[in-house]
């Protein structure tokens, strides 16, 4: 009969209205600033730079200023200047470091290509999203001081990926130490041959460990 559908619809909305007072399934919004939903681990927003130590972020950046991300970045929002000197990295190997590392996040499109091309696991995607500012210039141009975040932070926001990265880096470090020990034992220059690695070496001009030229 004409009109019965209207009453069915009215019953549905009345059920929703009543349910919103006692049924959590019918009252689903989270009151954002007070309550927050947990972000999924693979949520990504803008990149950050991983540093090993919380105490000395600038001294222990994993980044070696290889500039691959700068070249690969589709909107070209990364600007890097290499350092003049070298500092030892986590493996004790002498590396360049970025004297300037800037990301213009008003240009960044969160594509994650920088993360995918980085051979050093030095740049990762952040979970930080409350970055609104009143000024659209300087506050959105992130310097390396603002980009650097410790590995413990990375462990906290992306536990699965961070532990995978850590175990891979630890294996590489161990291999480098063994190789250094072997080289010290042989008292001879190491043979110039590539070694087996946990990550494919095809895209890596300067892998973090087991390097061909500056090893030991």
């Amino acid at each position, binding site marked *: 009969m004409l009109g019965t559908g209207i009453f069915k*619809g009215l019953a549905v*909305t009345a059920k929703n*209205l009543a349910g*919103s*007072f006692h049924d959590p399934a019918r*009252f689903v*919004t989270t*009151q954002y600033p007070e309550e927050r939903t947990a972000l999924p681990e693979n949520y990504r927003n803008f990149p950050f730079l991983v540093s090993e130590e919380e105490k000395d972020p600038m001294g222990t950046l994993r980044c070696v200023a290889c500039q691959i991300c700068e070249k690969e970045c589709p909107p070209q929002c990364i600007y890097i200047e290499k350092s003049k000197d070298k500092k030892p990295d986590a493996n004790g190997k002498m590396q360049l470091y970025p004297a300037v590392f800037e990301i213009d996040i008003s240009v960044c499109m969160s594509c994650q290509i920088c993360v995918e091309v980085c051979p050093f696991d030095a740049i990762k995607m952040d979970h930080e999203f409350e970055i609104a500012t009143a000024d659209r210039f300087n506050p959105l141009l992130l310097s390396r001081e603002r980009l650097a975040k410790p590995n413990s932070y990375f462990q906290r926001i992306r536990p699965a990926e961070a532990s995978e990265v850590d175990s891979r880096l630890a294996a590489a470090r161990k291999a480098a130490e063994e190789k250094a020990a072997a080289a010290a034992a042989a008292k001879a220059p190491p043979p110039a041959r590539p070694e087996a690695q946990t990550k494919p070496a095809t895209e890596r001009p300067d892998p973090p460990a087991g390097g061909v030229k500056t090893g030991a």
Partner: protein
Amino acid sequence: MSADIPEMDSRLERLPLTLRDLLTAHLPEPWRWIAQSLIAIAVVLAAFGLLFAFLTLIERKILGRIQNRPGPNRVGWGGILQPFADAIKMLTKEDIIPRSADPVLHYLAPVALVSFSLLSLAVIPYGRRLVALDLDSGVLYFFAASASSELAVFMAGWAGRNKYSLLAAMRALAQLISYELPLLLSLVPVVMLAGTLSPSEIVAAQSGWTFGLVPHWYALTPWGFAGFAIFMVASLAEANRSPFDLPEAESELIAGHLTEYSGFKYALFFMAEYFSMCALSGMAVTLFLGGWQSPFAALQFVPSYAWFAIKLLVLLLGFIWIRATLPRLRIDQLMRLAWKFLVPLALINLLTAAFWHLSAGWGTGAQPLRWGIALALVAVPFVLIGRRLSSGLGPRTYRYAAP
């Protein structure tokens, strides 16, 4: 004027009039009358202004709850001050008049709309002896005032020199004039049976209870129920409320006749919509739901204006509930509903009312027969016309997709 308040009413019942007399007692005669009228105007404006403010809040809260979210809850305690925040926002916004618009009409349209919808609030009896303007032909006046709002809507659509506005104004005219007909036809039986056009006397005609339990409201008779239903559907359309909000269909016409309005003028349109919704609901209460009469004889100690307010709020919540439920009609569906469904039913309802009036003298034994015939006169045309209108329209069969 305190002489015409009988002492039989309770103190609470007499409270509004006592207060008014207290304020105006010391004035000489012609001034007292003017002061009393001004007080009535101020009270109606203040009451409906506040009702408008909080109705927007209640509406947003209820719509939110129905859509599984809490609605506005930031300003004040749980969002209770939201209407005032909205008002401040509206008042401080820039008032834009398009360069090619007609400035006079553009300015006049919102003012005219609000004043027409306020005019119609004057004749509704809000309680026993509580009516701002007790006209003998108050019903006629009410519908004349509410019908002139169509003029203001068309003014608004024309003045902006905007195609969306003009299309919306044409739709609005077509819709409002079409629904004027069932609206008026549905209340003709009330006027016929009450024998008067005065709202106060129509309310008085619905007084009394059977066994002290069943009130003699017109909505509880077969013809009155049909008339009430037609009246409510038509007043949804008259008040531009969903599902008949075609004049301001935002998904098709930006904001319809409001496209070129901003700031306070936009707020005035919004206010006029709620005022006319309140006025039409108030008229429906007066005509069909016994006005300020209490539903049970035992509950007469509750003051009459409280009963009116309760009934008004129930109807307004019904409007909100319907808005939350039904999607907007298409313009041809809208016209078909008015001309092929509501108008014939309203005409048949005249016959039902006439039968009810003529069979008033039937004895107690013939009452079931009387009710049966009257109910059949209401239900059979509804089913037949409804079946004819919806034949071939549904339910939809899915030949390729799984249902």
